[in-house]
């Protein structure tokens, strides 16, 4: 019979080991990407056009495409997402309709990304006739990002103390005035953090843009929202599986640029969270 204190030590050591196994690959991935990607970075690589069937030159159009898609996604998903969260947190009664909306949001969050791709193709590209375009891609990514933004905004709204609202009502403010002047200003940091994280995920998605916007090789910048565009995540797919004899340097460089963009967004989001948490007085 082993002493229960010894048992505890063994158990905790096993738990620690498991945690290390979970975390280690993150470090490994970042290390491999940085080590191999950094030498590829240059002004020419980031701001140049691809040449020689993507085997040399830069990746500027893919960066611009991803930025356009992310902005397009933000334009559609942020207003819708914030308004929907306001409805759920500030207006909705606890009834069957609210429950159905919640179930719908949970399911939107769970639909596989490739199914969003199919849906976006059949609705936006084919049925509405947008063609394979930045517009169709952004709309597809927006619907996918919506549940993330709604959930984050709702959490931020519900963290605003009830007493704030009551004080506003007691001064004779209407419900919308209370939301706009009292609840929203206090929830902004939380909303921003969640929104940026949602958008950074959209920026890295490949499956939803495969058939809705992504161009295999298009060495010019998009001119309108009805244009196709290259995008970083799809470009990584193309470079690593579709085009033979691409130098690893270009592959890693492209991966590093995407990972770098996403990390900058994530760090920005954490900064906002920390900054406002320190300033928060309630």
């Amino acid at each position, binding site marked *: 019979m082993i002493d*229960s204190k010894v*048992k*505890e030590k063994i*158990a*905790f050591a096993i*738990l620690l080991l*498991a*945690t290390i*196994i*979970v*975390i280690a*690959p*993150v470090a*490994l*991935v970042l290390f*491999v*990407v940085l080590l191999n990607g950094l030498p590829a970075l240059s002004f020419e690589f980031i701001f140049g056009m691809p040449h020689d069937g993507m085997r040399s030159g830069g990746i500027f159009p893919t960066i611009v495409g991803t930025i356009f898609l992310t902005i397009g996604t933000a334009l559609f998903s942020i*207003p*819708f*997402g914030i*308004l929907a969260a*306001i*409805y759920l947190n500030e*207006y*909705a009664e606890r009834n069957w*309709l609210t429950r159905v*909306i919640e*179930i*719908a949001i*949970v*399911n*939107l969050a*769970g639909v*596989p*990304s*490739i*199914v969003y*791709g*199919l*849906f976006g193709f*059949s609705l936006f590209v084919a*049925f509405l006739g947008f063609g394979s375009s930045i517009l169709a891609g952004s709309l597809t990514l927006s619907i996918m990002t*919506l*549940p993330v933004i709604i959930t984050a905004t709702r959490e931020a709204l519900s963290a605003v103390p009830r007493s704030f609202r009551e004080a506003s009502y007691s001064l004779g403010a209407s419900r*919308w*005035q209370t939301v706009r002047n009292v609840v929203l200003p206090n929830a902004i940091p939380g909303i921003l953090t969640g929104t940026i*994280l949602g958008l950074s995920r959209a920026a*890295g998605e*490949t*499956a939803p843009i*495969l058939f809705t916007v992504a161009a295999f090789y298009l060495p010019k910048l998009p001119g309108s929202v009805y244009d196709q565009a290259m995008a970083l995540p*799809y470009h990584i*797919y193309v470079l*690593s599986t579709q085009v033979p004899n691409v130098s690893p340097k270009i592959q890693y460089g492209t*991966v590093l640029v*995407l*990972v770098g963009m*996403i*990390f900058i967004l*994530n760090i920005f989001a954490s900064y906002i969270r920390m900054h406002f948490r320190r300033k928060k007085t309630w």
Partner: protein
Amino acid sequence: MKKLSEFIIEKLIFLSGIASILFVLLILVFLLKEGLSLFRTVNPIDFITGTNWYPISDPPQFGILPLIIGSLFVTFGAIVIAVPLGIASAVYVAEVAPPWLRDFLKSGIELLAAIPSIVLGFIGIITLAPFLKSTFNLSSGLTAMAGSIMLAFMSMPTIVSIIEDSIASVPKSYKEGSLALGATRWQTIYRVTLPAASSGILAAVMLGIGRVVGETMAVLMITGNAAVMPTSMLQPVRTLTATIAAEMGEAVSGSPHYYSLFAIGIILFIISFAINLSADMFLHRSKKKFKVKR
């Protein structure tokens, strides 16, 4: 005038609120619109139980059983790896780790969630596949096993964060009661805390499965992409999701091949709907359980 603008904005708020329902219905309608057309020419039973997936040969054969088995193999392997590791690290992060280490570990797991699947797929091809190839002496490392390992890690952020939440929501008095009876912290964890958090753990596992079944790009790149009936984890397979991603670009719009990919989409939609609905119910139940007692 103020009243009118307020009336308009409140209507907009309501419409955005119910938009999520509309989007779920739209996804379903458009999948059905295209997918059901397949069954004018193909028997639904043959579609699901057929063992040959030759969508562009003449005559084409649309049997998705190899793809279903491919998805099952990869998912099963991933869950076998992910569930014990996920529970163990969630317990460590929530109950054992000192505060400074906890924040560090949590950020690490968040970082894993932030890395796009295409990047993990790329790194997997370069590191994991050669490793498996030499370890098991295979002709190619791109196998169901590679997909399982990859997906186990990709599902980790989901599994760990939900289990951690549900452990954190177990009332303190439960743990204090156990410790007061002379139990060690470990005895308290596995006799009291984990059973009390069981519905949350179940929900985490289900959502992890949902994440694994729906993952597309990394799986497409790393499982070897062979649409044949697999017999072992060390063979290349192809999943339902990867099939859509790989073939949609070449499928002629309005052809049976095109419709069949949407029919696969319907199946994926139904699977994710069932998983998310039941996981949500488990989460609701665990929330309710502690509400009265706290």
